[in-house]
């Protein structure tokens, strides 16, 4: 977390690997150090140099009524004398009639289109009899040079660097694309009415993250280098030292731009203010206008969410998997088997805005917004986020970072194969697969972790590890849809793809010396079974252990023999209830909270571990708190829509948390009032 959340970005190291300098690298030349001047007539020399370096130049050009980024061949392709006028929902080109080429602000495209392309092949999955294989697609990143990149776009690149490269799991395809692109920035000498980089602290002056930066004057460009590569380019350009007048006019132009923008979005305390308005009626008002069309997220240079699609042949034996742009405004984004966690447009809009201006800070240390104004211009109904941003306040608890074993296949395209050893039906729709030939990383996984399970032609799914054996792991799966049904249909010697072990675990060490209460329902017993194994393996280190397990009917109970075995031990209290039964069941019928809400044991001595449908967990948490357990002693595990399991597709976000990476096990204290909140 940075001290000033407005500080825009940590500039990515240049291709040579050295850190970007905040001040330009001087070139030792006859002119000495300092910025240079390139005459307008010599701009094409720069383009030629880039072509000679075998680079495609992605620069500004006019197309379809806008200034977009596209491959350009020469200075003729640049938008000479063209500028733009932007306002909410409107974009118009204007003809200035002069010779300047950078007198516009930003168009609908950004460098993100090349560093995080809309469609990227991930892998090819194949099935041959029982064996499966996943071949990650490795793409050659094209050699590019971005020309005309603005300060806000540089900040956006830095922000995506942090998302894709700054965490425990990285996207190497992104890294390769960043590495092979040269960045020639341009300081803005004009601003649109929709720009607000001054508020977000990202511009208008480029302060780092570039190889070269140009400031346009009537007669040419003031040039500075930001990296040795940039300096090397300058050394081959017909430049001379910039004189004082030119430097002054450059600085003055930038200063004027900053002044025009003012400070439309005061950001002091914005994170807290915004999150405090989570239940504001204003969200519903915005939703009356919002079309949930996702245009704002697509033009946004920092939005990074994606989905994984499969295209298979008719037998499902060969399947190409691709990563495509997909954003939180689409219907399927937050869907799981039981429904969608964010079905209403107002919840989706709130998710987007609070992510951009609040929870992004918790996740990555900066705002997610760079103030480029694209979302304002390209919203078909002209919603202006500056106007919509609300004002108020409280900080959320910081998230703890436990150390975890390094998971395998933890990149978006890869899976490691494992082989099913045996299968056991638990109930009519639940099966436990015992999987062997697994990477040792799985065997040293922790209680509560999960794996992403993949089979070609089906979407990969998060499945809890329900037992850690000596050389096998168990996966207990419920048939909730075609993908789970297909996995359940597999048998001994069939192979599957795995990624993991992933996620946070039940903090069993904290329970030592305390009473333990486990409350679970239905298939929720699966992720808790390893915890029970662990508790029983060192029974003497824990005081009373109480298991309360509810199921729909007696036939829907999981692990029935084990339940009998645990009860028969005599040193753990096992109580079962069902929602409904016939007369052959003589045990309790009702909800699992009734098993303990009138009990007399001392809650202040207990830690609780809870898993089940979210509504059941809410009722359970209420009952546990009424029994005297504090929020930092109640642990739940959340289920959300996951496409990658490693915090890169963006789907599983809940407030500031990535359920796959910060969870799925959380204490109530960590969740705060996110738990049980609608549409979050």
């Amino acid at each position, binding site marked *: 977390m940075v001290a000033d959340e407005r500080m825009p970005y940590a500039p990515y190291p240049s291709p040579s690997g050295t850190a970007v300098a905040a001040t330009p690298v001087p070139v030792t030349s006859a002119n000495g150090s300092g910025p240079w001047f390139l005459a307008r007539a010599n701009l094409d020399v720069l383009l030629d140099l880039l072509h000679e370096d075998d680079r495609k130049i992605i620069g500004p050009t006019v197309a379809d009524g806008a200034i977009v980024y596209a491959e350009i061949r020469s200075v003729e392709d640049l938008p000479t004398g063209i500028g733009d006028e932007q306002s909410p929902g409107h974009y118009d080109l204007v003809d200035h009639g002069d010779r300047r080429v950078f007198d516009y602000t930003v168009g609908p495209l950004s460098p993100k289109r090349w560093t995080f392309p809309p469609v990227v092949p991930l892998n090819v999955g194949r099935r041959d009899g029982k064996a499966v294989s996943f071949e990650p697609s490795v793409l050659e990143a094209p050699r590019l040079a971005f020309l005309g990149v603005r300060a806000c776009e540089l900040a956006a690149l830095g922000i995506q660097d942090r998302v894709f490269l700054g965490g425990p799991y990285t996207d190497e395809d992104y890294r390769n694309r960043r590495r092979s692109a040269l960045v020639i920035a341009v300081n803005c000498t004009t601003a649109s009415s929709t720009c607000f980089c001054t508020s977000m602290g990202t511009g208008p002056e480029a302060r780092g993250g570039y190889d070269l930066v140009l400031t346009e004057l009537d007669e040419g460009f003031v040039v500075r280098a930001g990296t040795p590569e940039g300096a090397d380019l300058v050394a081959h350009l017909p430049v001379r030292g910039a004189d004082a007048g030119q430097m002054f006019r450059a600085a003055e132009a930038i200063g004027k731009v900053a002044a025009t923008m003012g400070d439309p979005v005061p950001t002091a305390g914005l994170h807290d203010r915004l999150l405090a308005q989570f239940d504001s009626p204003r969200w519903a008002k915005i939703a009356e206008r919002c079309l949930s069309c996702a245009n704002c997220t697509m033009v946004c240079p920092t939005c990074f969410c994606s989905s994984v699609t499969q295209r298979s042949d008719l037998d499902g034996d060969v399947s190409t998997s691709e990563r495509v742009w997909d954003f939180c405004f689409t219907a399927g984004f937050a869907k799981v088997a039981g429904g969608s966690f964010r079905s209403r447009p107002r919840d989706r809009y709130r998710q987007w805005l609070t992510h951009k201006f609040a929870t992004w800070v918790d996740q990555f240390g900066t705002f997610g917004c760079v103030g480029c104004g694209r979302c304002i211009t390209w919203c078909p109904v002209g919603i202006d986020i500056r106007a919509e941003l609300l004002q108020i306040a409280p900080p959320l608890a910081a998230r703890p970072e436990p150390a975890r074993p390094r998971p395998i296949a933890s990149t978006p395209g890869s899976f490691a194969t494992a082989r099913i050893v045996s299968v056991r039906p638990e109930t009519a729709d639940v099966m436990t697969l015992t999987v062997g030939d697994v990477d040792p990383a799985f065997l040293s996984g922790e209680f509560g972790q999960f794996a992403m399970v993949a089979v070609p032609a089906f979407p990969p799914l998060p499945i809890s590890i329900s037992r850690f054996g000596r050389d096998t792991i168990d996966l207990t799966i419920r048939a909730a849809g075609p993908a789970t049904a297909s996995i359940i249909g597999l048998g001994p010697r069939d192979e599957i793809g795995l990624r993991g072990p992933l996620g946070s675990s039940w903090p069993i060490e904290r329970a030592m010396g305390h009473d333990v209460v486990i409350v679970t329902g239905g298939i929720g017993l699966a992720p808790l079974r390893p915890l029970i194994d662990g508790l029983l393996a060192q029974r003497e280190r824990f005081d009373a252990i109480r298991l309360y397990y509810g199921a729909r009917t007696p036939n829907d109970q999981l692990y029935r023999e084990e339940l009998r075995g645990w009860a028969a031990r005599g040193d753990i209290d096992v109580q079962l209830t069902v929602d409904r039964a016939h007369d052959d069941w003589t045990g*309790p019928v009702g909800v699992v909270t009734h098993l303990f809400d009138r009990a007399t044991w001392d809650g202040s001595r207990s830690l609780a571990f809870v898993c089940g449908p979210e509504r059941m967990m809410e009722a359970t948490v209420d009952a546990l708190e009424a029994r005297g357990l504090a929020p930092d002693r109640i642990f739940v595990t959340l289920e959300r829509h996951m496409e990658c399991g490693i915090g890169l597709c963006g789907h599983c976000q809940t407030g500031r948390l990535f359920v796959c990476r910060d969870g799925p096990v959380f204490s109530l204290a960590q969740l705060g009032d996110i738990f049980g909140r609608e549409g979050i």
Partner: protein
Amino acid sequence: MSVSSLSLPPADPVSALSASWFGAGLSPEAVARLAGIAEVRDVEPGTELVSEGQITEAFSIVLAGRVALRTLVPERGMVTILTVEAGDILGWSAIVPPHRGTSTGIAIEPVQLLELPGERLRVLLRSDHALAASVYPRVLQAVSRRLSATRLQLLDLFAREEWSRREGQPW
């Protein structure tokens, strides 16, 4: 797992009432007045204690054992929708009009009850307003707890999803 009641000595109404959840916190006078019309009764498993739709004769507190509340679903037969455990009340309809059981309650273990005859209890509560003011809130609380449970059961949160026949997603 509950305790078999036949191994317990017959309980005395006053102490049984005071020790129960229902009676905890009642004033000694209230306990005395209620215990005065109460009787301890032991029943065998299979005994029908409340009948759905019929007048409920007694308001009881379960001291030991388990009572299953059941209702008839024509295609499925008798289905148990809730069990009443030791400490909970049975037959609250005896003091709430129209005094008819809302489900059938059958002992599925040997059960010991503290029974208060419905008619006499109603007369007592009508005349002693202070007692009524202690009794009815407890009854409400017990019924409310059952209502929350029923709602959660209604949500059928553990339901096996019939995803193969859901709208627009046929397979």
